């Protein structure tokens, strides 16, 4: 929250300089001068109808109102591997104000084929830390908090505060646990799962039971035998991000229970509706 004095300084700068756009350089100078976070400068600009340059290309789709909402959003990404990596990168570039990334794991060679934060020289580093480093490079105005533990160790407060959660996990029992946590906290969950050429994406609204209908007491699906190539991870993650952005910016008010299942080998896309 900005103080009256800080707002006045910002106001003075924007009006005095007659600013009609805002570069990263200007944002940094203002943030440093007035001693406020970079994100606060960019939010202020949006309130004045000015799109920070870094978000300029979001204008025609997300729009100014959507961008304001995104900058104020708090989301949790559970899993920072194939799905979670791309989701986090995308949310960062989009300007999602606060992102909590949760993953207890470290990178290994087998991640290199599809996990965007995995590099040849960061294997054995913690995924939660590497995600943070990457987001610092990509969008310093977004506040990323990396938590290198399993999601069931998080305080209730973190879930209750969140506007949205992304299920980027890699096993079924954890996914069901996460769905229960989100339902209790009454926060929508964007579900995504991938294997080989195939993927599925769905919005799990609080107090609904879609995942319990398709996942029972198994631990893994076909991914255990066939793995996953990068394009499946990126496709599912992009669909998940788009669904998430629609919810955060108020473009999805329908609360439908449906899943998109895609098959990249046969170019088939199925919408499955649940009761």
């Amino acid at each position, binding site marked *: 929250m900005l103080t009256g004095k800080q707002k006045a300084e910002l106001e003075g700068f924007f009006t005095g300089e007659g600013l009609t756009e805002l570069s990263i350089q200007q944002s940094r100078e203002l943030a440093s001068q007035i001693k406020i976070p970079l994100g606060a400068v960019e939010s202020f600009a949006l309130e004045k109808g000015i799109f920070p340059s870094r978000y300029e290309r979001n204008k025609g789709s997300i729009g100014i109102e959507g961008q304001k909402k995104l900058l104020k959003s708090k989301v949790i990404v559970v899993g920072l591997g194939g*799905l979670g990596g791309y989701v986090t990168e995308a949310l960062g570039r989009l300007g999602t104000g606060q992102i909590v990334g949760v993953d207890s794991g470290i990178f290994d060679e087998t991640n290199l084929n599809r996990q965007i934060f995995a590099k040849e020289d960061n294997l054995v580093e913690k995924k939660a830390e590497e995600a943070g480093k990457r987001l610092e490079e990509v969008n310093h105005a977004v506040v990323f908090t990396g938590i290198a533990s399993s999601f069931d160790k998080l305080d209730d407060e973190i879930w209750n505060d969140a506007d949205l959660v992304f299920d980027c996990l890699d096993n*079924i029992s954890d*996914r069901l646990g996460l769905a229960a946590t989100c339902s209790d906290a009454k926060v929508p969950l964007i579900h995504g799962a991938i294997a080989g050429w*195939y993927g599925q994406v769905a919005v799990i609204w609080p107090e609904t039971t879609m995942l319990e209908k*398709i996942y029972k007491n*198994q631990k*893994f699906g*076909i991914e255990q035998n066939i793995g*996953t190539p990068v394009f499946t991870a990126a496709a599912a993650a992009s669909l998940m991000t788009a669904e998430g952005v629609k919810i955060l910016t108020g473009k999805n008010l329908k609360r439908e229970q449906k899943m998109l299942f895609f098959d990249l080998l046969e170019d088939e896309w199925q919408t499955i509706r649940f009761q």
Partner: protein
Amino acid sequence: MVIKVRLFATFREGRFKKKEIEFSEAGSLSGLLGQLEIPEESVGVLLVNGKDAGGDYKLAANDVVSIFPLIGGG
């Protein structure tokens, strides 16, 4: 009775995409999976006439059954 079966993703391998199957009267979904040699624990989404259904569902003639494999990777 005739049941219309639609298979998806890896379930098509060695089987088919769409087929009309002869199935015993008042058989269950579990029974159909057995006939198709699809282990029930490998099934994810399972629909009859577009609605999610369980293994104990009693099939009727001309039901359309859609069977997707279990996918849980991330």
